[in-house]
């Protein structure tokens, strides 16, 4: 099985790129692959704890929690992007890593495939 690194660069609400990224990560993990999931810019909202499910909005926190439990998934939020948006360490969901962009590049180094999703 391979390793997939996904760089996700959109917002949580207003863009479905993040939903697609999470769905893709979920599918890859289910097939036995490991996934490094990097969120940047507005995508760092995904790391915010206390998200609530509404029918008209994407709710990805539950999926992320389930993915963490597999042991084949790690997610990292861009620390600067998060801090710039007022999401501090104490606001972050359990399981998330917060690092600078070099974490993503290091993950790319050892990845079999890298997919950059979003950026719109």
């Amino acid at each position, binding site marked *: 099985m391979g390793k997939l690194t996904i760089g996700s*660069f959109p917002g949580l609400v207003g863009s479905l790129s993040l939903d697609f990224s999470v769905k893709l990560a979920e599918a890859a993990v289910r097939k036995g692959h490991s996934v490094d999931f990097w969120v940047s810019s507005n995508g760092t909202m995904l790391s915010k704890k206390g998200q609530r499910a509404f029918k008209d909005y994407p709710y990805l926190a539950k999926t992320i929690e389930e993915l963490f439990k597999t042991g084949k998934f790690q997610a990292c939020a861009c620390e600067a992007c998060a801090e710039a948006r007022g999401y501090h360490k104490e606001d972050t969901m359990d399981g998330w890593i917060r690092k600078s*962009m*070099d974490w993503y590049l290091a993950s*790319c180094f050892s*990845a079999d495939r*890298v997919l950059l999703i979003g*950026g*719109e």
Partner: protein
Amino acid sequence: MIKKLAFIVRSLPYKNEATRLALTHAIASQTVEIYLEDGDNVEPFLALVGDGVLCGLKNQSNKCYGITTMEQHITNALLLDLNVYYCKEDLERFGISEDQLVMDAESLGGDMKASIVPFSEIQAAMEAADHLQIF
């Protein structure tokens, strides 16, 4: 082992955050070694194509948004010895000449020069890269 990472910037400088993220992620390669084994590293290059060539224009102002300009980021990339390529055909399409572009970081003491190359050369560099990231 060195892995080549291609950062292709094709979007307008200030329309969304993606362009800025392309540059900052490429520049972050300078500290990636802390996560890697001895002898391993990444080698990024920046290619500005399509609307992305506008990122390299000189004399950008940060007065509107009050944040770092693309010009400053490209200058920093060159200061850190990243290869920066401008697509020749797209510069011609916009009527942009070399003297209008950030081509070096001499003002900060850098030696690296940006290159204006045909798209065929950028495509060859993309094909030689281990991972491709298009912004």
